[in-house]
């Protein structure tokens, strides 16, 4: 019994152990370093004399802007794609009963989408 108790206590300790990102200070610290790097590379853009292969590269901060906008556009389009591509997880699972699958699953997919959104938002923390 004693051994079991000790093990349980150990497990509890494990659960309660503070990991690096459990402390918001650490997260903030990492993010600040990251922001500083971002600023640094943009400043370097004006300091370092680059050879330019293409006229677009002459635009000030072409790469940062392109990378940022590209990714935002990517995510916005991908989100929009979900509205018509997303189905329930087991959409293909009963491949033998094809006839009922089309309409029912489409509805299910739509329902799940709204349900999941609620859950999903919890799942994501910045």
């Amino acid at each position, binding site marked *: 019994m004693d051994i079991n108790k000790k093990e349980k206590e150990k497990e509890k300790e*494990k659960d309660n*152990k503070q*990991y*690096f*990102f459990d402390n918001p200070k650490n997260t903030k610290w990492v*993010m600040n370093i*990251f*922001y500083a*790097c*971002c600023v640094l*590379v*943009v400043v370097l*853009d004006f300091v*370092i004399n*680059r*050879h*330019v*292969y*293409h006229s677009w*590269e002459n635009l000030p*901060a072409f*790469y*940062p802007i*392109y*990378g*940022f906008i*590209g*990714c935002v556009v*990517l*995510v916005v*389009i*991908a*989100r929009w*794609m*979900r509205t018509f*591509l*997303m*189905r329930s*997880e087991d*959409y*293909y*699972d009963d*491949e033998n009963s*094809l*006839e009922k*699958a*089309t309409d029912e699953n489409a509805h299910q*997919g739509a329902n*799940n*989408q709204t349900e*999941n*959104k609620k*859950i*999903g*938002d*919890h*799942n*994501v*923390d*910045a």
Partner: protein
Amino acid sequence: MWMLELPPFTLFFIGGLIAAMTSGKLRGAIMVAIPVISAMHLWTVPEGIHLQLTFLDYELVPYRADKLSLMFGYVFHIAAFISIIYSLHVKDTVQQVAAMLYAGSALGAVFAGDLLTLFVFWELLAFTSVFLIWARRTSRAYHAGMRYLIIQVLSGVILLVGALFYASETGSLSFEYIGLDSIAGWLIFIAFGIKCAFPFAHTWLTDAYPEATPTGTVLLSAFTTKVAVYALARAYPGTELLVYIGAAMTCFPIFFAVIENDLRRVLAYSLINQVGFMVVGIGIGTALAINGAIAHAFNDVIFKGLLFMSMGAVLHMTGRINGSDLGGLYKTMPKTTILCIVGAASISAFPLFSGFVSKSMVMSAALENGFDWIWLMLLFASAGVFHHAGIKIPYFAFFAHDSGLRASDPPRNMLFAMFIAASLCVAIGIYPAALYSLLPYDTGYNPYDATHVLAQTQLLLFSALAFVWLNLRNMYPPELRSTNLDVDWIYRRAIPNVLAKVFAVIWQADGAMRNAVRGKLSQCQSFIASKHKGLGGLLSGSYPSGNMVLWVAVLLASYLFLGFIG
């Protein structure tokens, strides 16, 4: 010397046989030894034709080595070695044997000097690898494996038809530059394209790879598509069409990857994206571009293998692979986390990691040859790949919200395999000259000038900034349990549905027609019967009792007659 004439695949095939008959530590030792011995041998093989024979009227060259095939030969050995170590703990004979035969088939294909030999190994690749999918032993895996096998075999059949056309057009089967000038050229191009996961033919990959076993996917990601890249590099360098196909391949999968929940499927999409860079390089066709394509294939085998290994480790330890179920694993799997981040940095082409030294060659070649819009697409794809493979994979698996899972780091052999791959990623990134010296052309390319490094760092950091910003504003698509439709919907849902509906109509019409005909027939029958009613003929429906009496009399008479004779 006889060893010289021994094509590299033979050792692997023999290894497969031995693996089938042994078990435990002995099997492990033999399986690890074979790629090492074979690689040491391959290192000494000079360029040239090492085996030649005549079959019917054709010269067959089952073993031809040049810089292009040797390059792929080396990386396939590395991949086989790493994935065998990674799967040492597996006690499944089917998987172990399939792994050896599959690696052997890939080697056979890249050293094939004629189209017939290529076809044989092309089909062997499909038949040996499908067992790595089926070894998962789920109904999903079984069906996905079936679809995979059908598409792969189809690609092989098209290749064979193309090869026959080619033989009749040119009178030779030798596997050299083919080009798109003839029917044969197009057929072979399509066969290569299917295996290379061209858009619309890519779904076998995203369908089957995530359904394979944790160790099987690592092998799958290394060989099949890279054999196709090799084949394209040999037969279609400088085909402009490939530039556009490749650019499409780099861009469209990233959208799917962003919304996909199964993290190994995310990697499958990013595999297509990376192959797209190689295809663009082959399409441009200059020395720098071809070098870039091959170097990128070399690096991709290693870093994509590393990423699949880290996700395989997560799946192995937690039994889950959906982004919506994972998170917070860095707490108890710190080594896997770091190794995964090395893989993520490599695929995103961070300076000092392997992806950077090869991807930038393709990008520079695109600019130099005036493919401005393609260059912009590649740049977008570079940012996108960082977004989904570089950030999304490590973030949702190891960080994000805490899923409460407390899995420990995987077995030591898995960690060691990942460590080898990660070391190679960093080593190639820091000292690319070693990789460049193996490439077919000497271009004197240097990836580490200030322009490149700064531009790439800016691009990547601001992609990351976009991720952070979107996440803070809650605009980033959350991981949801879902299936996303892709082109495979056409053959998994639309065509079966249409067929089901068409057949339902056909059966209905058929049933109605049969009923009508049957009704008419019985009407005819009763009409005829009524016409013959009471006549006692063959066609009447009932017989008069007089007939019966007559026949009884006949019977009795014959008895009497027989009685007299007896």
